[in-house]
């Protein structure tokens, strides 16, 4: 009896194995049209030794708008840069076609310049990226300073931490080549100090040197570049884009329930506004209409963050903030495009 039972179980087990091996590969039955994509595979293997084979490629997953403008200009498709950005992420360059961002014919014209793998940024794109990262650090520190001044070290601490935790690694490799002294140690020791003893008199001096370090790193970019509207506007929009997401992450049911994200966005907007003040007269001259739109949007935007400690009720909805940020971005793009065609 036991033997028979055993045989049956074996049979059942065999059946199960057979059946489940049929049913357990469900996706094989409906794969998206098989894409033979030698480029993608090549790109992967290039990953370890990128940046020396032929033409520079633009990473459509991470490029800033003005870099993507090269495709927009070449193909003459209006707002293509934004469309490419909106279609992220891309698994392969061909996804530009499968995701219907451009047609196959258009893709054929630019395919040599498109990549999805990490590329080493060069030229202006690299500088915009560098300054944007430092701008985010600066925003964090600005709001940390306000909170320290209001004797809120606990609230200030995350904003001292974020520059090291989230951003520093992205600029670290460039500091040497830009002849900037490392300042991770400075930031970390300030964080340690605020965490352990926020009343320590050294907090003030450490904070000042942290801020100086970030300013110093920004100053490694040529002053001329830092006063060029086309350049600064790109940085401003990177900052506002982050601020916009952070603000959305701060509000629930019309109330500010995540003060950290509210404060992050405040810092970014305050610094972006400062940057704009530095170039506003030039923008006003080059494109009065764009200036008017940007200027009035900033005036509206800045009111959303009345103080570092959040108000009980949100001044504007995340949707309204998104609209203002988009208005600034669209008008900036006009100015950036103009300065690019001039160059």
């Amino acid at each position, binding site marked *: 009896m036991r033997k028979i039972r055993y045989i049956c179980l074996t049979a059942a087990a065999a059946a199960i194995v057979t059946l489940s091996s049929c049913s357990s590969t469900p996706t094989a039955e409906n*794969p998206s049209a098989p894409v033979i994509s030698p480029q993608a595979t090549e790109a992967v293997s290039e990953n370890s030794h990128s940046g020396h084979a032929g033409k520079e490629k633009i990473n459509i997953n*991470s490029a800033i708008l003005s870099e993507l403008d090269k495709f927009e200009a070449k193909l003459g498709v209006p707002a293509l840069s934004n469309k490419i950005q909106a279609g992220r992420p891309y698994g392969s360059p061909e996804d530009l076609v499968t995701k219907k961002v451009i047609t196959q014919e258009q893709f054929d014209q630019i395919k040599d310049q498109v990549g999805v793998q990490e590329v080493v940024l060069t030229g202006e794109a690299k500088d915009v990226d560098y300054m944007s990262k430092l701008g985010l650090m600066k925003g964090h520190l600005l709001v940390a300073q306000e909170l320290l001044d209001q004797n809120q070290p606990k609230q200030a601490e995350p904003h001292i931490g974020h520059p090291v935790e989230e951003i520093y690694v992205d600029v670290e490799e460039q500091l040497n080549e830009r002849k900037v002294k490392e300042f991770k140690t400075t930031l970390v020791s300030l964080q340690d100090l605020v965490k352990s003893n926020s009343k320590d008199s050294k907090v003030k001096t450490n904070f000042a040197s942290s801020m100086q370090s970030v300013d110093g790193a920004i100053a490694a970019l040529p002053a001329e570049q830092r006063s060029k509207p086309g350049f600064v506007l790109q940085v401003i929009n990177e900052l506002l884009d982050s601020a916009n997401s952070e603000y959305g992450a701060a509000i629930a049911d019309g109330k500010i329930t995540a003060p950290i994200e509210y404060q992050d966005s405040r810092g970014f907007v305050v610094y972006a506004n400062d940057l704009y003040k530095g170039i506003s007269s030039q923008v006003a001259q080059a494109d009065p209409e764009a200036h008017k739109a940007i200027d009035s949007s900033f005036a509206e935007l800045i009111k959303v963050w009345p103080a570092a400690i959040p108000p009980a009720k949100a001044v504007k909805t995340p949707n309204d903030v998104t609209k203002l940020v988009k208005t600034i971005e669209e008008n900036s793009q006009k100015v950036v495009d103009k300065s690019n065609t001039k160059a």
Partner: protein
Amino acid sequence: MPNNFALGNEKPWSRRQLLKLGLAGAGVIGAAGLWQMLNLQSKSIVKVPPLDMEAPDDGTNPMKMLRDFDYGTVKQENGRTIREFQLTAGTSIIKLNSAVSYNIWDLNGRIPGPTLRAKQGDRVRVLFLNKAGHSHSLHFHGVHPAEMDGVRPISNGKATIYEFDAEPYGVHLYHCHIEPVTRHIAKGLYGMFIIDPPTPRPPADEIVLVMAGYDVNDDGHNDYYAFNGSPHHYMDHPIPIYQDQLIRLYVLNIIEYDPVVTFHLHANFFDVYRYGMSMTPSEKADVITMGMAERHILEFAFRYPGKYMFHPHQDAIAENGCMGQFEVVAQSKSQKTVNNS
């Protein structure tokens, strides 16, 4: 949506029923008997009771998440199977109870993120887009090269690609690895990553349970806890399962701040497949201790219909939301008649 089990009209098969059939067929055992058995078997494997899909109107949908597996898009490249997954980090608001709303970081609009599923040896390609403000990343558990380890921050608005081979088989996980990792995980950037063994596991009703905590005031202590994102949801909406059917639970503990929790099942014992990395159970238990990021496969079947709770035996954690129940549904008489004929 692909399913890893077929939904037949017949009554689900349990080990016990297979046994009965085996005994009945003892007289005619042989090719014919086997053939008949295979035939019967081929139509039904696992059946899932109908679900009350009523869900909160936000990034949580605990009923759907139970059996929702993302197998990715399958592509063939140079003779290899590539499973491509798309994960986008965003921000959203969920309701923890009738009075408390909470801002989370979500993946593809949900918390926890999609349960990604591949087969050992597949090439896995994850397209990750960050639209959640802060820098984020995806760090996968498993074996892969350093550059695919997902600890480098991906800034807001940027996308990146993680690509590696799915190995070894087991129940794994993925999560954001940006400091402070506690906060980045606790606010929602995590999900389960299952790598199926080369020889599939026996058919079962497969269910995912992810335990997580919510620190709503950023003080480093959890205020609420949940299975699959929503506190108390499975207490109010018990998970229907069939009597005598093999249930395979994929359980992950991603609770930050509390170093350890247990998982306890009422009125039963389960077979434990630690980390899902073997085909034979290591032990039988009704409580299993799980440290941070530990995950296991637990298998069991319920003998009697009724409602049975499951929860960490840290009862304070259970009482604050990490608590649910199975509703064991009896097979209906009519179904039995159909099947036995």
